[in-house]
């Protein structure tokens, strides 16, 4: 398993064209040595402090998700403030499609990490996956953090997967919502994938 360097990433993007990262707003700045910088998208799902005492994924009706989550859309360059210990779902602005022979890890950028921002907990991206990555944003620090839509927020480190998958898991398994526009809601994923009795 080898990490793709800048040259290999460029070859996959512009030569072989089997790796898709769309759009690249700043190709020169975003493709770094060994990683692609991904930017923060414009759609967020913010949990509401509602009348619900707790979230029980096994008992929750899908249609009730909206009752404790608010969807918001901002313009590029607008900001969202994440208060201490606040959690929000965001998504990368870039849409990714990995070929069957590449997998990836999403990592925090260290400057944000030092400020106390955690950007993802499920950081592995399967070979063949496609969609906009959902980011589980959480401010672990003690002061609010201002996040700019469109600013580089995380890094995608690409690795070769061997042997390549015959068929990628794809984004279109409709037991999960598609991650194209709004980030995927927390409970839908947890609730539907966790086996009963676990």
């Amino acid at each position, binding site marked *: 398993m080898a990490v793709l360097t800048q040259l290999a990433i460029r070859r996959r993007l*512009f030569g072989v064209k089997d790796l898709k990262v*769309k759009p690249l707003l*700043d*190709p020169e700045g975003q493709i770094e040595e060994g990683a692609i910088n991904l930017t923060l998208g414009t759609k967020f799902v913010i949990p509401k402090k509602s009348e619900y005492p707790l979230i029980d994924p096994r008992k929750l009706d899908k249609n009730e998700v909206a009752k404790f989550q608010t969807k918001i859309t901002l313009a590029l360059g607008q900001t969202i403030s994440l208060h201490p210990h606040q959690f929000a779902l965001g998504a990368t602005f870039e849409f990714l499609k990995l070929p069957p022979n590449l997998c990836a890890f999403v990592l925090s950028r260290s400057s944000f990490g030092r400020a106390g921002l955690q950007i993802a907990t499920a950081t592995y991206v399967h070979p063949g996956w496609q969609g906009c990555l959902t980011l589980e944003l959480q401010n672990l620090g003690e002061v609010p953090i201002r996040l700019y839509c469109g600013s580089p927020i995380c890094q995608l480190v690409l690795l070769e997967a061997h042997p390549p998958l015959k068929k990628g898991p794809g984004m279109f398994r409709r037991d999960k919502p598609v991650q194209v526009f709004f980030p995927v809601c927390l409970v839908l994923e947890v609730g539907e994938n966790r086996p009963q009795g676990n």
Partner: protein
Amino acid sequence: MHDSALNLTPLLHELGHFVDFDREIYKRVLPIDIAHSKASKTLVNSLVRRGSPEQEVYALCKDIVRKWVQELIADLFAIRLAGPAYFYAFVIYAANIGLDTEAAVSHPSPVIRIDLMLEELGELGYLLKTSPRAIRSSLQRWKRWIRRRKLEPEDPFMHLAFLAIKDNSAKLARSVRKNASPRPYGTQAYKENVPGLVADLEEGIPPIDRLDAEGGRYVPSDFVDVLNCAWSAYMFSMNKLEDLIECKPEDKRRMAVRTLNDLVLKAVEASEILRKCQALPGEKPWPSSPN
């Protein structure tokens, strides 16, 4: 409206109204001589014999003509701006309300509008052998369908308005061509930009941009290219998107349309942002971070 990508297309018709009022295209078409042809004169006489005062016939008919002309100008504007995308958006809408819906005082009937749009698409080259085959075949089917329909409204006043506009349809089309977009969406524009975007969409990738000929720069997709890509995929290749979806067979179509909608909305937003970023080289709408 804002959460359905395919439903963004009728906005071009509304834009046509705005351009019409701004550039006063309707003034180049109106006033129209109501009883110009022999058929119109006969119809006016029959209405007068039935007890309608002649002045009232003309006044009512003029009002209908004015409203219909403005609607048809907006249709022609949208067709010239977006080509087949607007046509398909309209026929799907019309099929939902009923293709044989009668004309109203405010709007001509769907068949009258479809007939005029097909004429304009023909003028843009979409019925020629050089046009994309799927589009050409589908438009020819619509052309055959419209030949079997009765265009004339049942209502005698509207019938009179229809005849008056029909006599002046060439003048109407000329006025829109002269005053609408200087770059009509002809077959060349479609063939250059849309098939590549449709290929992306069929693979489940939002049609945001394409690499230029040298392969070093991303060219953001135009809004009308994205709409044409969306409608082409919707009309001719939804099965390819359905094949990408793993769900119950009975849910596939609905899920594919939802996915198409998500992908196209993403493309509309991201292509516009990419265009803005490329227009401001070196400037970014966000502060740079140290790492």
